[in-house]
C-alpha cells in the first residue's frame, strides 16, 4: 500500500513537472514568427513516416544507423512495458497482463529483452565512439561543457535503465523457479531466463524480492528522470523529430524564401502608375531579415530544439572542413540557447526586460515588449555567417530535415538590409548589378562573345 501511494505521488510529481517544462519549450518555439505551412499534407505525413519513424536519412551511414536503430526501437517498444508498470504500480499487482496474454506476453517481454540487449551493445559502442575513438564531429569547439556532458549522460541513463530492466526480469525468473508466492509463471524470457539464474541463482528469496523491487523502481524512476531531463537535453529529438519532419519545408533546397514586402516595394518603384500612398512614409523604418529568435519562423526555432547535435552537418560543411569558424550545428545550438535564455527571462516576469521606452507604463513582461539588449549576434559572429557557401551540404546531411541554411541567410539579410553592413568586398558586386546589370563592372558589351563567334565562323 505504501509503495502504491509513493508510486502515485512520484508519478504525479514527475509528470506535472514534465508538463511544465514542455510547455516552456512550446512557448520558446512560439517566440518565432507565424509560418505559412504550404504544400501537400500527404507529402508531409510521408516525410514523418519515412524520415522520423523510418529513419531513412540515417541509413546513409550504415553502422551508426543500425546502432541507433536498436536504441530507438528498444525505446519505442519499452513504452508497451511502461503501461504495465503503471498498472502494477497503481493497483499494487504484479505483471498484470501476464495471465491475460499468456504466451503473447512471454513473446512481448522477450522481444523487448532482445531489443534491450541490442540497445545495451549500441550504448557501449556509442560511449566508445564518443570517448575512446573521439570521432571528430563530437569534439568540435561547440561540443565542450554541457553539450559534451549531455551526450554522455544520456548514454549512462540508458545503461542504468537497462540494468533496471534486467535485474527486475532476472530476479523475477529466479523467483518463479523457486515457486515464490507473488511471482506467477510467465514462460521463458529470451534473455532473463539465462541471465537471471547466472546472476542471481542461489540467492535467498527475500534478497531476490529486494533485487526485483530495486530493478522495478530503478526502471520507472529512470523513466521519470529521463522525461524531465529531455527538455534540457539534445535528446528532445526523440519527440520533436516527428513534428520537425512534418513541418519541414517541401520546397527544393535551392529555393530561398521570398521577401514579399521588398518585392512589392520594388514593384511599385518600377511601376510609374503605382499609387504612392500604398507605402506609408511616416512609419518607423522596417527591419528586414533576422537578428533575434523573434524574427525567425517558429519552424526554425522548432528545428533548433529538435537538433540532436550529431554534427553530420558540420562534418560536411566546406567552410568548417577548411578551418573556418562556421559550424551549422553551432548555429542551431545558438538559436536554441538564445530562445531558452529569452524564455527564462520571460518566466522571471521581471520588468527590467521590458523595452526601455515602454518600461514606465508596462505592467507585464511579454514577448512583444521584450528587450534584453542582446540578440542572436551575441551568440553567432559575423565571421560565421559570412563563411557560408550556401552549398546545402548541411541540409542534405541532417537526418531529421533541419535546414541550417535558412537562419544563416536570414541573419545575412539583417546585416545587409537593416544594418547596411556586411563584407565590404560585396559592395562592388552590388553596385555593378544595380548600375550595369552584371556582377562585374566591365567595358565590354554583354553579347560581345556572339560577335566574336560570328567572326570566327
Amino acid at each position: 500500500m505504501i509503495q502504491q501511494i509513493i508510486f502515485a505521488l512520484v508519478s504525479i510529481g514527475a509528470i506535472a513537472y514534465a508538463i511544465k517544462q514542455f510547455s516552456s519549450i512550446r512557448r520558446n518555439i512560439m517566440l518565432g514568427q507565424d509560418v505559412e505551412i504550404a504544400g501537400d499534407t500527404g507529402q508531409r505525413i510521408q516525410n514523418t513516416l519515412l524520415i522520423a519513424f523510418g529513419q531513412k536519412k540515417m541509413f546513409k551511414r550504415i553502422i551508426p544507423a543500425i546502432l541507433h536503430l536498436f536504441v530507438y526501437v528498444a525505446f519505442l517498444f519499452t513504452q508497451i512495458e511502461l503501461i504495465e508498470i503503471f498498472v502494477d504500480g497503481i493497483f499494487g499487482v504484479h505483471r498484470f497482463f501476464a495471465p491475460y496474454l499468456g504466451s503473447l506476453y512471454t513473446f512481448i517481454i522477450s522481444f523487448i529483452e532482445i531489443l534491450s540487449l541490442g540497445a545495451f551493445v549500441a550504448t557501449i559502442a556509442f560511449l566508445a565512439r564518443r570517448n575512446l575513438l573521439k570521432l571528430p564531429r563530437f569534439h568540435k569547439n561547440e561540443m565542450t561543457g554541457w553539450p559534451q556532458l549531455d551526450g554522455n549522460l544520456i548514454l549512462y541513463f540508458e545503461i542504468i535503465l537497462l540494468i533496471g530492466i534486467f535485474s527486475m526480469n532476472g530476479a523475477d525468473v529466479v523467483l518463479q523457479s523457486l515457486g515464490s508466492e507473488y511471482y506467477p509463471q510467465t514462460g521463458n524470457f529470451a534473455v532473463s531466463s539465462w541471465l537471471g539464474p547466472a546472476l542471481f541463482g542461489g540467492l535467498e528469496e527475500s534478497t531476490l524480492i529486494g533485487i526485483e523491487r530495486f530493478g522495478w523502481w530503478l526502471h520507472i524512476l529512470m523513466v521519470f528522470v529521463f522525461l524531465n531531463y529531455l527538455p534540457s537535453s539534445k535528446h528532445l529529438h526523440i519527440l520533436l523529430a516527428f513534428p520537425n519532419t512534418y513541418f519541414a519545408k517541401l520546397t527544393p533546397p535551392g529555393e530561398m524564401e521570398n521577401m514579399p514586402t521588398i518585392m512589392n516595394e520594388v514593384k511599385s518603384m518600377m511601376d510609374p502608375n503605382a499609387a504612392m500612398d500604398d507605402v506609408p512614409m511616416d512609419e518607423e523604418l522596417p527591419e528586414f531579415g533576422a537578428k533575434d529568435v523573434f524574427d525567425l519562423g517558429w519552424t526554425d526555432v522548432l528545428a533548433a530544439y529538435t537538433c540532436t547535435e550529431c554534427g553530420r552537418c558540420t562534418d560536411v560543411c566546406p567552410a568548417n572542413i577548411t578551418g573556418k569558424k562556421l559550424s551549422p550545428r553551432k548555429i542551431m545550438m545558438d538559436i536554441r540557447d538564445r530562445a531558452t535564455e529569452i524564455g527564462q527571462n520571460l518566466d522571471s516576469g521581471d520588468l527590467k526586460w521590458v523595452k526601455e521606452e515602454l518600461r514606465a507604463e508596462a505592467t507585464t513582461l511579454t514577448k512583444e515588449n521584450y528587450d534584453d539588449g542582446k540578440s542572436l549576434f551575441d551568440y553567432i559572429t559575423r565571421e560565421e555567417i559570412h563563411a557560408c557557401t550556401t552549398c546545402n551540404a548541411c541540409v542534405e546531411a541532417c537526418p531529421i530535415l533541419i535546414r541550417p541554411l535558412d537562419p544563416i541567410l536570414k541573419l545575412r539579410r539583417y546585416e545587409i538590409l537593416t544594418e547596411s553592413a556586411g563584407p565590404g568586398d560585396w559592395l562592388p558586386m552590388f553596385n555593378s548589378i544595380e548600375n550595369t546589370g552584371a556582377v562585374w563592372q566591365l567595358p565590354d558589351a554583354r553579347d560581345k562573345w556572339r560577335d566574336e563567334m560570328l567572326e570566327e565562323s
Partner: protein
Amino acid sequence: MADMAAEGKTPEVLFWVGCAGSFDARAQKVTKAFCKILNAAEVDFAILGKEEACTGDPARRAGNEFIFQMTALQNIEVLNMYNVKKIVATCPHCFNILKNEYPELGGKYEVQHHTEFLQGLINDGRIKLKEGGAFEGKKITYHDSCYIGRANGIYEAPRSVLQGLDNDLVEMKRAGSRGLCCGAGGAQMFKEDEPGDKRINTARTEDALETGASIVAANCPFCITMMQDGITAAEKSESVMVYDLAELIVNNNGF
C-alpha cells in the same frame, strides 16, 4: 531575341547566358561550345543579348534582397514581354534562381540546365556522340555543382552524358549528394575567404587529383574557375584539364 521577335518568330528555347558566360574569358568558351552544339542539333534558339541582366543570385545569397528584386523584376519584365516559355542556362546559379525563385515574382518558365538539355538532345537523337572520340578510355572525374546537385537533385544527367563519351568515369571520394562545394557559392566568389586553414577549392582539388583523372568535368562557370585555380596552385595544369560538359561534347564530336 529582339530580332526574332521583330520578325514575329518564337524560338524553341531561350539560352540564358549569364554574367560569367557573357564576360568571363573562360566561361565564354563554354558559351560558345554550347552554341555550337545547339547549332549542330539544329535547335532554334535565341539569347537576350544586351537585354539580359544578372539574375540576382549572388546579391540575394549575400542578403541584398533589394538588388535582387530590382534585377529580377526587370528580367521578368523582359522575359514576359517576349513571351518566353522555355529557358536553358549554362550556369547552375542562374538555372536555380530562374527555376525556383522567379515564379513567386511572376516569372514562370520551363527552365533547364544545359546538362539536362544536352542529355535530352542525346536521348532524342538530335546529337549523336561520336564513338572512339577524343576521350575514349581517358579517366574523367565529375565535380557536382551544389546548385545542380543538392539544390535540385540532378545527379544522373551529367553522368549519363559523360558515360556517352566512352571514357572511364571515376568518382571522387565525396561525390553526388555528398559532393564538396568548390567554394564559390553564396557570393563567396565575390569576397575574400574568411580566416581558416585552407581554401575550399584547394580541398576540392585534392579530391579531384586523388582520383588520378586527367580531366575534371564540371558544369558551372564558378566551379570551373575554382577548380582551375586549385589545379594551377597544385602545379598540375599541364596534366589535368577542367572542362564543361559542353566543351567535352564539342571536342569529342569535333563540331
